[in-house]
């Protein structure tokens, strides 16, 4: 492994955001308002939740090795999948890319010194910690067994687990999300560098703008809804419990009004990451820039109109079901627009297989499967059959793990040199990407078949004829775990021992690559002025690529 061939001996800059001293040691981190340090605080904390969620997932898969259940009691099994879902969705996946990469990169990408409200940014992290604290309290005192969806009246009346602290925790955590979204929107509106017009914004910024809209418009609804469920539980106010004059389906409407758009909070940022990686390693301007940007906004808007496709079999009216089915088909269009544009970008590109690219290509394949099976589920007749089966579980894991987490790990590999100033071992990381891909498919593809054959989700036991597919899935999960542990170890290793990356190791075209790696606290030595179009490799002599010719030099040289 080596660096860009043209610049052999690179050194880290003397002064950068990691070694800048304001205040002493730990205080300089806990009281920082530097968006880059806050991003790292988030990186550490979402990793903790990823670990917790991961341990719970491992226990689920071990339990399902045998038809009778190998590990825990039925009651505990309910808690395992619930706490897994809550940790992964609310405390890992929703904050992951926005709060880590969005925080770190948006100011850098638009040529600003920080986000618009640096203190609010820090506040959002503390709110996240407080919300997370409540949820961990719930996990450790009785656990939680309602499913991550908290359906009433189970959550508001019958469950004997620690529902109240959990809904309070998620309510609090919602404000962290709202503040992050607010910060991004204001920053993108008001803090762009000279020449950084809207249509020169990186697509990552567009994706985060769309995500922020969803965060701001949707999160208050889920926060209030869970609070209402909590109030019903604590004070017997009748909102959702029919015995108290409430309506349980109203809970589902309100819950999914946020939680379907929330799946786009998870996937849109990952799409943004992929839109940055693909042109970089195809060495080509992205195909259909304005369509990709516009489709992010379209997804955010149409994504709000499909929620009741989660409720086809709950007794919602047939006409509503028809409407929501139709609208669900509609939302697939902007997603497909993106996929076609990414593949057109690859066409005739000079593709290099650097690690971020391997992750991005994996993302495209898995996202397509996840998205298409979403269309199966949006089909009224078919959904009667596969609703609440493992087919649904496979569908959303293809998008959330195969898509969003793949994008997250891909982004980690893409911007790691910027964040830490160092490169990681190339072949090992390509190997890890392939392990992840193989492990993922082995874990979740059998679940499509299981669901289609009729294995329901959220049961601690299953008929013996389903054992082979379940064992395959558990075997896949072990490989998948390796696929996560590998990057975790070599990335940590590289922080100390990795080769110095230099400002722009790939090279890529974004503004964030025009400053030091790691950047200094103020991001840029002088405010940059943008005079080029996005993802243009031809007119960028500063990238150090051969003039005129289509650049072919792989970022790592030959290792």
């Amino acid at each position, binding site marked *: 492994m080596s660096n860009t061939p043209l610049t052999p001996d690179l050194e880290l800059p003397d002064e950068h955001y990691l070694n800048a001293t304001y205040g002493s040691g730990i205080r300089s981190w806990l009281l920082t308002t530097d968006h880059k340090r806050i991003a790292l605080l988030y990186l550490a904390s979402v990793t903790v939740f990823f670990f917790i969620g991961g341990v719970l997932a491992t226990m689920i898969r071990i339990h399902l090795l045998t038809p009778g259940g190998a590990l825990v009691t039925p009651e505990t099994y309910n808690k395992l999948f619930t706490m897994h879902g809550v940790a992964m969705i609310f405390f890992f996946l929703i904050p992951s890319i926005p709060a880590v990469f969005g925080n770190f990169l948006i100011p850098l990408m638009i040529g600003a010194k920080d986000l618009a409200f640096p203190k609010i940014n820090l506040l959002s992290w503390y709110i996240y910690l407080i919300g997370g604290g409540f949820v961990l309290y719930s996990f450790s005192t009785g656990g939680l067994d309602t499913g991550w969806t908290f359906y009433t009246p189970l959550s508001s009346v019958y469950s004997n687990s620690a529902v109240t602290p959990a809904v309070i925790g998620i309510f609090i955590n919602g404000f962290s999300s709202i503040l992050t979204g607010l910060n991004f929107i204001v920053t993108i509106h008001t803090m762009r560098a000279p020449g950084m017009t809207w249509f020169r914004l990186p697509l990552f910024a567009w994706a985060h703008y769309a995500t922020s809209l969803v965060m701001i*418009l949707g999160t208050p609804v889920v926060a209030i809804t869970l609070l209402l469920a909590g109030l019903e539980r604590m004070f017997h106010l009748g909102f959702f419990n029919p015995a108290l004059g409430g309506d349980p389906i109203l809970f589902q409407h309100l819950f999914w009004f946020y939680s379907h758009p929330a799946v786009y909070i998870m996937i849109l940022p990952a799409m943004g990451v992929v839109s940055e990686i693909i042109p970089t390693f195809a060495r080509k301007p992205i195909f259909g820039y304005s369509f990709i940007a516009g489709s992010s906004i379209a997804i955010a808007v149409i994504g*709000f109109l499909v929620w009741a496709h989660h409720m086809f079999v709950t007794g919602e*009216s*047939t*006409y*509503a079901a028809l409407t929501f089915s139709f609208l669900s088909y509609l939302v697939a269009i902007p997603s497909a627009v993106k996929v076609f544009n990414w593949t057109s970008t690859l066409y005739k590109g000079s593709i290099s297989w650097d690690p971020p690219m391997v992750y991005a290509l994996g993302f495209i394949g898995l996202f397509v499967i996840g998205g298409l099976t979403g269309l199966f589920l949006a089909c009224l007749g078919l959904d009667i059959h596969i609703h609440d089966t493992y087919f649904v579980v496979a569908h959303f894991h293809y998008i959330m793990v195969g898509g969003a987490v793949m994008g997250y790990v891909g982004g980690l590999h893409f911007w790691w040199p910027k964040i830490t100033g160092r490169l990681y071992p190339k072949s090992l990381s390509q190997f890890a990407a392939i392990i992840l891909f193989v492990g993922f498919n082995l874990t979740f593809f059998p679940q499509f078949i299981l669901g289609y054959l009729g294995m329901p989700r959220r049961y601690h036991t299953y008929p013996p004829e389903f054992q082979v597919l379940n064992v395959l899935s558990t075997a896949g999960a072990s490989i998948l775990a390796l696929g996560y542990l590998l990057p975790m170890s070599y990335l940590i290793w590289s922080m100390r021992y990795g080769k110095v990356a230099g400002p722009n190791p790939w090279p890529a075209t974004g503004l964030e690559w025009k400053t030091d790696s790691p950047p200094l606290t103020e991001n840029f030595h002088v405010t940059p002025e943008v005079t080029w179009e996005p993802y243009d490799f031809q007119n960028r002599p500063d990238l150090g690529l051969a003039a005129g010719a289509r650049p072919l030099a792989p970022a790592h040289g030959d290792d």
Partner: protein
Amino acid sequence: MSEHIVSPKVYIVIFASLMLGTGLTVWAAFQNFHQYNIVIALGIATIKATLVVLYFMHARYSPGRTQLVIVCSIFWLAIMLALTLADYDTRPHDITLAAPQVFYCV
């Protein structure tokens, strides 16, 4: 931020109207207007909320962009309510109706 100074008189008038609205709500709660009970209660509440947003939250004196944001969020709320109500309003009220049949022919 533009600092628009609102005279105390305006605040007093608005406050008085809110109090009046509260009184009206309490009074209405003890009358029976049948299916209009909820319409009247929500109607008064909406007027009160509008006054709060316009005067106490200064939306009336805010720049156009802020007003646009407020209108958009209300529009989003309307989407939520409209589509949810669309479900309730099209449910068969007559239980004996064979509702799910359409499922199987689409």
